[in-house]
C-alpha cells in the first residue's frame, strides 16, 4: 500500500524519473538534452525493476549476510539491472557517437535548424528549390523527380502512372 515507507517513496521516485525523462525527450529541441533525458528515464526504469524484487524485511542476497535461511530480496531483478546499467552506458556511448557524426555533418544539434539544413540538402540533391515542399499546399508541391536511368515496366523511364499499379 501507499504509505510513508521505503517502497512507496522509491516507487514514487521511479515513476517520477520515468515521467520526467520521457517528457524531456519529447519536449526538448536539442539532441544533447534529449540524450540526458534518456539517461534519466533509464535510471527510473532500473530503480523500478529493483523495486519489483524488494521484500520487506529481506536481507541482501549475498552468502554470509544474515543468518542462513533468512528471507532475502529477489536477486533476479538485481542481476537484470546489473546488466541493464552496463548496457545503458553502451547505448549512451553509441548515441554520443551519432551526435558527433551529426554535428560534423550539419554543424548543429538543434532539431529545427537540423531539419532545415537536411531539407535544403535533400532539395539540392534532388534539384528542386529548397523549402518548396514543407509549407506549400498539397497542389503546389513539386512532384519528386525521377532519377535519370531508372527504368520500370517495359523499359520506359519517367514517373510511374497511378493507374498501372497492380491491384
Amino acid at each position, binding site marked *: 500500500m501507499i504509505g510513508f*515507507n*521505503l517502497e512507496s*517513496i522509491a516507487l514514487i521516485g521511479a515513476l*517520477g524519473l520515468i515521467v520526467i525523462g520521457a517528457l524531456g525527450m519529447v519536449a526538448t529541441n536539442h539532441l544533447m538534452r534529449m540524450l540526458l*533525458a534518456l*539517461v*534519466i528515464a533509464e535510471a527510473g526504469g532500473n530503480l523500478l525493476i*529493483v523495486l519489483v524484487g524488494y521484500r520487506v524485511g529481506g536481507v541482501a542476497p549475498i552468502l554470509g549476510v544474515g543468518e542462513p535461511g533468512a528471507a532475502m530480496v529477489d536477486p533476479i531483478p538485481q542481476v537484470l539491472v546489473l546488466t541493464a546499467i552496463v548496457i545503458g*552506458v553502451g547505448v549512451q556511448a553509441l548515441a554520443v557517437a551519432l551526435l558527433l557524426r551529426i554535428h560534423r555533418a550539419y554543424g548543429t*544539434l538543434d532539431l529545427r535548424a537540423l531539419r532545415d539544413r537536411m531539407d535544403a540538402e535533400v532539395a539540392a540533391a534532388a534539384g528542386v528549390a529548397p523549402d518548396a515542399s514543407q509549407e506549400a499546399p498539397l497542389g503546389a508541391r513539386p512532384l519528386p523527380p525521377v532519377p535519370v536511368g531508372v527504368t520500370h515496366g517495359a523499359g520506359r523511364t519517367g514517373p510511374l502512372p497511378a493507374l498501372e499499379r497492380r491491384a
Partner: protein
Amino acid sequence: MTAWVALVVVVLMLVAAVAVLRLRSFVAAVAATSVVGLGLTVLFVLLQAPDVAMTEAAVGAGLSGVILALALRRLGLWRIEETRGGREDA
C-alpha cells in the same frame, strides 16, 4: 529512519532531474545527471542491492558522466561561464 533517508534522496533526484531539463548550461546538466545516478546508488543500498549500487556508482554515475563530459568537449558545448541572452544551440 530509512523512509526519511529515501524521502530526502528521492526529492533530491527529482529536483536534479528537473534541473537537467531546465538548466541552460550543458555542463551543469551533465553534473545533474550524475547527481541522479548517485541518488540512485543510495536507493539501491536501501533496497538491499549493494552489488547493483556498486555498479551504478562506478559505471552509471562515473563512466557515464565522463562519457557525456567528453562529448560536450567534442561538440563544443563546454562553456562554464553563464551566457547572457540567446539560446545555447551550437
